[in-house]
């Protein structure tokens, strides 16, 4: 048997992965594990490599083996959760997803509520606190379950939600009482994180999407934006090319506006609803693209929601406006990396979460040009239909 100095191999492999040379990295790892046993860090690397190359069945087998071997390595359980959810294996997936606050970078942000978690059973009239977490997109995607929790629990539901989404949540069904994240809730018996609702309620693929739309725009904002956009020739296509830069997977999911040049075509009016540090790119659109930069005029999600309700389509990378538009029941085309976030599943052009949404997936790692070329064809067809 060869003695493997795992740390040396580890460094070498990480360097290759950082350069995207996955096949070479795998060619080093695989022989070291050929006997069927080897150091745990190497197995983790193999799982990572096979996942990034889309071999999910193998990824899952390795990750399940790791969880069996070291059940207390909670980051390993979270990795398995992401693979299971990506494969649509909801039952165990949601259970293991429970460990999302047990990672080295998340333990400090776990909310230690001093009351038990809701167990999914009816609790008529008693107070249940549901609180959102994580990103805006998560809140837009999972807020639909608040109404389901209300129906199941018959509780007095208090929803604690981020300030930016509060007014949209007010027009959403389910909560009896709404408070802003960080403010003192009234007394409550049990609580549930918004993204633990799937685990607690045993969410299945068949339960999706539920009632669409479940979010609605503000009528006054819609009126305002109708006036603002009235003179523009249709189709109106909203554009988002970058997500929050701090997201761990941002390099895979985000693009620059210049990357979207293939979509430029006569007869389509693009609306840049991009927010954040990348919004400035809208001032220098690619050649041939008619683009209206709206960043300065968009104050909050209410503005974005109103624009999405008026526009004909949102084209976006995997970022929160996708979920907002989906929840509003508006058409969306999402640009997805080869291995997307678990919520988009694999090998399908639609999504059970939002019936009006189409998925444009990279057919090979990093291949945005091919994906955009396909999308440009579809966009031209849509333009011709609408005009």
């Amino acid at each position: 048997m060869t003695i493997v100095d795992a740390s040396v191999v580890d460094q070498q492999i990480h360097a290759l992965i950082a350069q995207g040379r996955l096949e070479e990295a795998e060619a080093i790892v695989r022989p070291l594990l050929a006997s069927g046993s080897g150091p745990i860090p190497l197995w983790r690397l193999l799982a990572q490599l096979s996942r990034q190359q889309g071999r999910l069945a193998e990824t899952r087998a390795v990750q399940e083996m790791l969880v069996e071997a070291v059940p207390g390595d909670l980051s390993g359980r979270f990795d398995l959760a992401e693979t299971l959810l990506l494969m649509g294996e909801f039952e165990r997936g949601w259970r293991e997803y429970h460990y999302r606050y047990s990672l080295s970078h998340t333990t400090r942000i776990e909310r230690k509520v001093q009351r038990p978690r809701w167990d999914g059973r009816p609790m008529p009239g008693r107070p249940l606190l549901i609180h959102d977490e994580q990103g805006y997109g998560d809140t837009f995607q999972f807020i639909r379950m608040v109404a389901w929790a209300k129906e199941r629990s018959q509780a007095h539901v208090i929803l604690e939600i981020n300030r930016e989404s509060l007014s949209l949540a007010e027009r959403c069904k389910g909560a009896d009482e709404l408070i802003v994240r960080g403010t003192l809730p009234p007394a409550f018996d049990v609580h549930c994180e918004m993204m633990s609702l799937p685990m607690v309620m045993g969410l299945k693929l068949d339960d999706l999407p539920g009632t669409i739309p479940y979010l609605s725009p503000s009528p006054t904002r819609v009126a305002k934006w109708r006036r603002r956009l009235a003179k523009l020739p249709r189709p109106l296509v909203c554009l988002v090319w970058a997500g929050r830069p701090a997201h761990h997977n941002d390099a895979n999911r985000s693009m620059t506006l210049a990357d979207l040049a293939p979509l430029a075509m006569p007869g389509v009016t693009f609306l840049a609803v991009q927010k954040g540090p990348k919004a400035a790119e809208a001032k220098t659109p690619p050649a041939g693209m008619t683009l209206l930069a709206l960043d300065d005029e968009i104050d909050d999600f209410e503005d974005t929601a109103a624009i999405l309700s008026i526009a004909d389509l949102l084209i976006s990378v995997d970022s929160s406006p996708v979920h907002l538009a989906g929840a509003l029941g508006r058409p969306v085309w999402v640009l997805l990396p080869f291995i997307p976030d678990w919520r988009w599943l694999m090998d399908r052009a639609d999504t059970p979460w939002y019936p009006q949404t189409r998925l444009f997936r990279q057919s090979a790692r990093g291949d945005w040009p091919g994906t955009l070329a396909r999308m440009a064809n579809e966009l031209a067809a849509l333009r011709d239909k609408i005009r």
Partner: protein
Amino acid sequence: MARKPSAPAPSQDLSIEEALSRAYAHWNAGQADQAELFCQRVLAVWPGQADALHLMGVMAHAYGNLDLALQHLRLACQAPRAPAVYFSNLAEMCRQKGLLSEGERAGRRAVALDNNLVAGWNNLGIILQEAGKLDESLSCLERVVALQQNSPEAHNNLANTCKRLGRLDRAEGYYAKALSLNPNYAEAHSNLANLLNDRGRLDEAAAEARRAIDLNPQMADAYINLAAVESSRYRFTEALRWLDALLVFAPMHAGGLAARAQSLIRLERLPEALESAKRAVENAPESSDAHNTVGQVLQALSRFDEALEAFDRAASLPGLATENALVNRAILFMENGRKDEARAAFDRALDSFPRSAQALFNRSDLKTFAENDPDIRTIEDMLLDGGTRSLADSQALHFTLGKAYLDVGNSDRAFYHLNEGNRLKRSTFHFDIGATTEWMRRIAKVFSPALFKSCRGVGAPSSLPVFIVGIPRSGTTLIEQILASHSQVLGGGELSQLQRIVDGIGVYPEDVVKFDKTVWERIGRDYLARVEPLAQGRLHVVDKMPANFLHAGLIRLALPNARIIHCRRDPVDTCLSCYTKLFTAEQLFTYDLAELGRFHVAYQKLMAHWRKVLPKDRFIEVDYEAVVDDLEGEAKRLIDFLGLPWEESCLNFHENRRTIRTASVNQVRRPIYKSSMGRWKAHARHLEPLLTALGVDLT
């Protein structure tokens, strides 16, 4: 739908009471930042304010910062009006930090301040439990259960104390109650696993521990308990695997490190064991368990003075390993032939723990019981009232009485207890005598004359190893002791290396026909890698693992210059002797008379095969009875077989201070004795299944 206005920025004119009440309410809702802000505001105007400090401590504890939490709680408890519950929380945090005496003081203060504080009685009760003050712990926790009849935690804690008191039925009942109140209660599943392991219900125990880990994958005790079950099954590699899995997420867990060291001792990986045990002590300098474990490793490494020091340290600390440490230091003396010190050490252990089964059991080897020996009465009482703490203790006590009654010549009582002890032991493992005898037949078939012919010249050429093989209790320890008294021979004791190699070479024995030259040489070298470091410059190292008789053929091919000594003794005497012993190592065929007999017959057949196929200069047989009759002649024959010049010291083997760690520990210290020859005839009426299997005709 009502909408609450968002919180106003904390205003400057908020009263202290109001700020505190908001701080606690925010914490209750899991809003740690806001809670901390309000605490800090209070502390800014009133440094040392007890309620604010208490909450800061509780929050630090929730986020895993035990040291900071303790710091805050100690300060909070210094306030003149600090309420009972703060002392109660301080007590629990002290316990988690291993500060038992400070915790006990805080716990007592809590219940003195508020006699109705359930949490106070609870926390005090579990500290007293860990400190070994079990009777007082019991009354605290019984009070808690009375006040909170539907609390799973209360029942679990009470069960733990009952278990440590040896009230196993009561303990099991309380665990069951805790689990009926909350079926997903990980701690209760884990504790129940521990109890079931002690009771020898190993499959149930493993299932409970697995369930605990499923429910809470970072519950350290569940891993330690699961490892203990695997150790009970003699699956030490599996035990080690679970402890390593624990250390992946809790690398400094002292209990885990100590348990890991114990597994490594059983796997004979002593340097690693020592490192692990020392890390346990570093992380828990006040843990008697950790020091006791260091002692056991040092003992295994033959570093006796240091081992003794570690056992003494362990015995001086509060906790549950104290009794074990006292017994271990007595065994240490015994293994080194220091009988007087050993007797004194056992007396000391029994002074502190009068019902210590392990002390009574181990001491019995040091003496010949007289009819009026008070131990006999003590043990009979212990077995009668169900006051033993584990199945292992019950077994040990039955074997002790078996020995005692044999000593006084009461054959009926002796066999009543021997049968009972053996039956209990036999119930803890699976063993298929039919499959085993068939396996032995296959070994003889595979290692055929043709195989030896086709494999001529293979293996590693070293002549260092000497194997002593046979059935346990057939004189293997005696022979090793004689050989090891020679200046060129080192006694290595019973080594499991060869068995471990066999376990790793595929389907045994069938796969060996596929081995080529390189495989045979590698097997030989694997074995030598284990024994060469022991040699200390001597020409031979003895491995007296009796069960290596199964592998004499393998030895011949992997180590063609190794010598094999086969010890023989009257079959009935051997089997009777096995039946009276509770072995520490895995020994599956000795706990049922019929199985013993069948095993012995199969062994005789296999040895007859080896006699035919192994060369005379590498394989020799020695009869125990011949050694007893003519020690010098037989000793000379064996020394000659090893190719060594004769040394007189080989006749004074009982003066050799070399440590012995098998069931024969006290016998080889005595000059050769004949009392064990043919002794079975006095007990023939109790041996019928054995005699039938061996084909011995009584008439």
